[in-house]
């Protein structure tokens, strides 16, 4: 930062509402200040007076010699603050940088003195930018313009002043939001002291992704392969920390980067760079690592279906999905050293399979390739329903399979999470699928009350939902159930391994026949005798 005293012509922006009124009128009339416009704003002014006013506007540079509104005039129209020119000796604090130019951060009027110090006057080779409206870094409400630096022989002379002030430029490039903002901070001279710099931030209007592409060919190539189409950095799995694996972002330290036209910068921290696997192997390791981490940090018994669902949720809609990582077969999974050496993890996976109450063909122990349709399952035995992963089933197909040709007299969905926008969309599809079989059929819903919008559910199903606490007390069921009381024949139910409400549509307005993306879902048909008392009571007609 330079500090010097200089003879200059300055203009301080002061409140001048009449000029603001004139500029606003000009902005609304073709950005032109004319005699007629002046007379319309200031009725009674003669032509000569109006011309005189226009001449003053030109002097103030709110309009050019043709009467056209300048950028300064636009600013006056916005703020009612107009430049008031003056000449004198000023103490100026100036900084220079490619991003912000040669900028005065502060200017103070100096009293004239006869100190006879001509020998101390030094040339100012790179003067501040002229005609730019500067904002004081001490008081942002103070703005001024350096109109000219009068001098002899076009050589500006200044009296340099000592200073302890510092100034730092902090430039943030936000690739995600595609905006760059730079800010100044530090300290600046005031009367016999230093004050912190006040600066609200400005933008350089960079095209950031083009810049990233440039850097991808340059400094980023040392860390991975920049993919312009996906705007991700393809990185090998071995270079990733746990946090980076989970966030799919990585912070990089670049020794030097260049912003074309705005300078070269050293020791640049590039934060939250979107990353993706560099290869299918990396994607597989990455996905498996995330799975293990989730299993070890949230330890609990998990069924094979939950493992498949968890693996899918950890990979789908992430940069991993495109590589179609594979959840290993159950035996391979538990044989992995990371699993078998961790007793708690081992038992959490193996016990749920060894001690599963479902038929073995309901527990799909085979490998799961994310993003690829599962192989068509062998014909399921009677009393079993399996929705294959990415099998393209619609809600109607599931409902038809559950009904098994029966015409329902009453249906109950027992699901602990009937909440959230996406689940309610799936609930709407479920109800539509039922009503496609029996028009106007109502659906009973039992669910947990915490977080559920019973009114919204009722609007979809036609019946007021019942709370788990009311129906089960403290012994809530873990799984989901669909119970059906048919018009004829014996009542029956389905014990489901997952919620039918987890189905998601890829279109904006799905209907019951829309193919959906399902998480693993299988069901076994049950009789009332094998159900919890509350469910059995409903199925046998005891509860409404």
């Amino acid at each position, binding site marked *: 930062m330079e500090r010097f005293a200089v003879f200059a012509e300055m203009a301080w922006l002061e409140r001048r509402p009449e000029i603001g009124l004139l500029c606003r009128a000009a902005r609304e009339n073709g950005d032109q200040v004319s005699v007629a416009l002046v007379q319309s704003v200031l009725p009674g002014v003669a032509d000569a007076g109006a011309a005189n006013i226009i001449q003053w506007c030109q002097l103030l540079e709110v309009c050019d010699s043709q009467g056209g509104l300048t950028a300064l005039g636009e600013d006056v129209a916005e703020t009612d603050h107009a430049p008031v020119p003056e000449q004198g000796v000023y103490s100026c604090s100036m900084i220079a940088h490619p991003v912000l130019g040669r900028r005065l951060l502060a200017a103070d009027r100096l009293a004239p003195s006869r100190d006879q110090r001509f020998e101390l006057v030094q040339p100012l080779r790179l003067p501040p930018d002229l005609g730019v409206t500067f904002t004081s870094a001490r008081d942002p409400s103070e703005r001024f313009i350096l109109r000219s630096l009068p001098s002899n022989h076009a050589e500006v002379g200044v009296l340099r002043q000592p200073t302890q002030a510092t100034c730092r430029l902090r430039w943030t490039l936000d690739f995600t939001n595609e905006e760059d903002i730079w800010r100044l901070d530090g300290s600046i001279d005031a009367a016999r002291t230093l004050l912190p710099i006040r600066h609200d931030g400005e933008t350089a209007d960079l095209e950031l992704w083009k810049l990233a592409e440039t850097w991808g060919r340059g400094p980023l190539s040392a860390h991975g392969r920049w993919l312009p189409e996906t705007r991700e950095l393809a990185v090998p799995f071995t270079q990733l920390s746990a946090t980076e694996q989970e966030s799919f972002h990585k912070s990089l330290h670049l020794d030097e980067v260049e912003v074309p036209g705005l300078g070269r910068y050293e020791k640049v921290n590039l934060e939250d760079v979107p990353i993706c696997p560099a290869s299918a192997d990396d994607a597989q390791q990455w996905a498996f690592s995330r799975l293990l981490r989730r299993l070890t940090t949230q330890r609990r018994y*998990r*069924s094979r279906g939950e493992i498949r669902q968890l693996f899918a949720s950890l990979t789908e809609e992430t940069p991993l999905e495109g590589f179609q990582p594979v959840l290993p077969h159950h035996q391979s999974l538990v044989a992995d050293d990371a699993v078998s050496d961790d007793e708690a993890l081992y*038992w959490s996976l193996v016990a*749920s399979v060894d*001690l599963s*109450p*479902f038929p073995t063909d309901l527990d799909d122990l085979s490998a799961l390739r994310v993003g690829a349709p599962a192989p068509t399952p062998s014909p399921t035995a009677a009393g079993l329903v399996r929705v294959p992963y990415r099998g393209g089933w619609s809600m109607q197909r599931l409902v038809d399979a559950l009904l098994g040709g029966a015409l329902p007299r009453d249906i109950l969905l027992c699901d602990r999470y009937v909440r959230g926008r996406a689940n309610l969309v799936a609930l709407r599809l479920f109800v539509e699928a039922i009503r496609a079989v029996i028009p106007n059929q109502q659906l009973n819903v039992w669910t947990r009350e915490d977080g559920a919008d019973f009114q919204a559910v009722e609007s979809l199903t036609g019946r007021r939902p019942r709370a788990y606490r009311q129906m089960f007390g403290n012994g809530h069921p873990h799984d989901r159930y669909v119970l059906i009381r048919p018009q004829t024949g014996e009542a029956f139910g389905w014990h489901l*391994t997952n919620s039918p409400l987890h189905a998601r549509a890829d279109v904006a307005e799905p209907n019951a026949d829309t193919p959906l993306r399902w998480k693993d879902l299988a069901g076994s048909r049950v009789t009332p005798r*094998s*159900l919890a008392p509350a469910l059995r009571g409903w199925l046998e007609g005891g509860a409404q």
Partner: protein
Amino acid sequence: MSGDPIVRLQRTRTEDRRKAVLETAWLHNLQAPAWHSPADELFVEAGQPFVTTGSDEVVLLMLKRGTSAALEHAAELGHSGARVYVLAEQEWTPAGTALKSVKRLLVRRLAEVPASGLVVGDTAALWCGKASAWRLALTPAQATAFRQIFLRIFWHDAVDEAWSTDGRFKFTPAQVRPFDVPEIAIDACVRRVPAGETLRAHHSHTHALLNAGLPGDASLRRLWMPPSGLQTGRLRHLLDAGCSVTWDECGLPDTTTDGRTGALLLAGKGMRLRLELSTDQAAAALRVLDGPAAWSLLAGLEIGAFAGKQVQFWLPAAAGPSALSKEQRIEVSTLHPAELRDVPCAAPSTWPSPSALALNVTYTWDVIPPAVPNGAQDDPLVGQWRNVDRGWEKRLGVVSNALMSTSGVRASIGQAFKRLMSALMGFERAESRLWTELKALEAERPSAVGPVGASRLLDQLGRLEDDIGKLHDDLERAQRKAREDVERERQRAEWEATVTAAKRELPAKAAQLAATRADEEQLQSQLEAVEAGLAEEEDKAAKKDLKARRHKLSDQAKKASRKARQLDQQIEGLQRRIKAPFTYRPQPVLTAKKAGKASRFVPAAPKKVIKAIPEDALPAVGALRKYKGRRYLVIDDWIDLEQGEAEAARLNAELVTRERA
């Protein structure tokens, strides 16, 4: 009645009971051989090899406390690489068992598991019965149902869990289940039932074994149930209907079968496991229940017929089996006859029932004579007589003291007044007589002689008191007379000495008076001469000398005149003493502050000390006591019985013996 002390008596009575008949009783033949299972492989006893079929990678072990065979089989499979899931009861830990070293072992625990069982692949078995003595190989359907029960309990009911970590087990709260395990159907061939449920024999079942409770209304041919003293009434109906009721320690759980169908109900506190038997299992169960048994319930047994045999009987309402006893001694409750005379022959009005298994019975009982109640006090009559006796003794004491003081007075008078010696001889004789009478009265007690005799004694005592008082008066009078005589003589001697001294002094006094009067006259004359000379003398010096002489002579004359008057008075006094006659002046009597109390030399006899004499005499035998308004006559010896009864009647008292300790 002899002279024996009255104490509690013990009496006996003996009865022969060999003809007694037992209506119903469990008969235990102690000479019967030990029970031996006739069962085949469907009902195998513990300890036999456990052969598995299908995959043996996963072993499910439900472990009830006290079952080691299932654990050993599971450990063997675990050591071969299988994953072993154990469902055990709380407080159980693999430490110290063969399972400790199994590499893959997951244990979950809860308060109680319904049975011990093992599921390996398609093979499953249950260990059941007392001490898990039986192992039942399960059919595929039973194995499937048992596996589901295992899963249901494992995932829904377990409260904590642990797995092996380097051979150590750290139990932590059980984590939540990953899914719901369906409820076991109420008609499943293996299912849990409430603890209160009992095994009701199906109407077609012919054999049943119940470790507790009674069968339903089924027409059983043979019922095994543990002998007890309970419910024999219900069992009697079964006996009458032709059912054989038996028991032996075969160790089976509750079982019912007809050889084609049947059921087992395992023991449990919270839940019980019920298993429907397959046809083969039911047939095997039937063979077991058709086997011999050491216990049988019989009716109409004459106990004399089993004398000397090795048998035990478990009688209705008895706590356990008992052998015949040759003799039973029964202690009948102690008797307390109301009358003392009834004590020697007192016996119970009813006799307690002897043990049904006693061949002879001897009754013994104690008789406790009526006794005076604890806390009884002496009867008021006793107190009244005691007061009379006490007053009697007090008066005798006073009289004795008075008489004793009389002796002292008499001795002192004798020493002081020798002249009274002859009179004192008479006093001594009177005193000696009074001592004799006093000794005679001291030998008597009013209470011992009754109301009439007591009055007589009091009269005699009154007279004795009067005599002693009179003796005292006489002694006092004689002493007073002697004391006056002595005083008179002393005063006369004193008078005579005074007269003699006056006579001896009178002449000297008269001579002194004459000399004094002469000196006085001489001085008077000298004074007159001086007076005259003074009147004549002119010389002052001589006059002055004369005046001094006149003064001196005047003083001497006055002195002589005063001395002459004194001598006149002294002479007059001596003459009056000489002329005065002798007069006796009695010594003044010292009066006490209260003359009344000290006026008598001998204190008055305390006649009022003796209370009124009771109307009734004390009993001749025993002690008269009173308790809560009732009067008791207490005797200690049978010899006093008759006299005591008469005295008790006289005094309106109950005749009793002394109070019990």
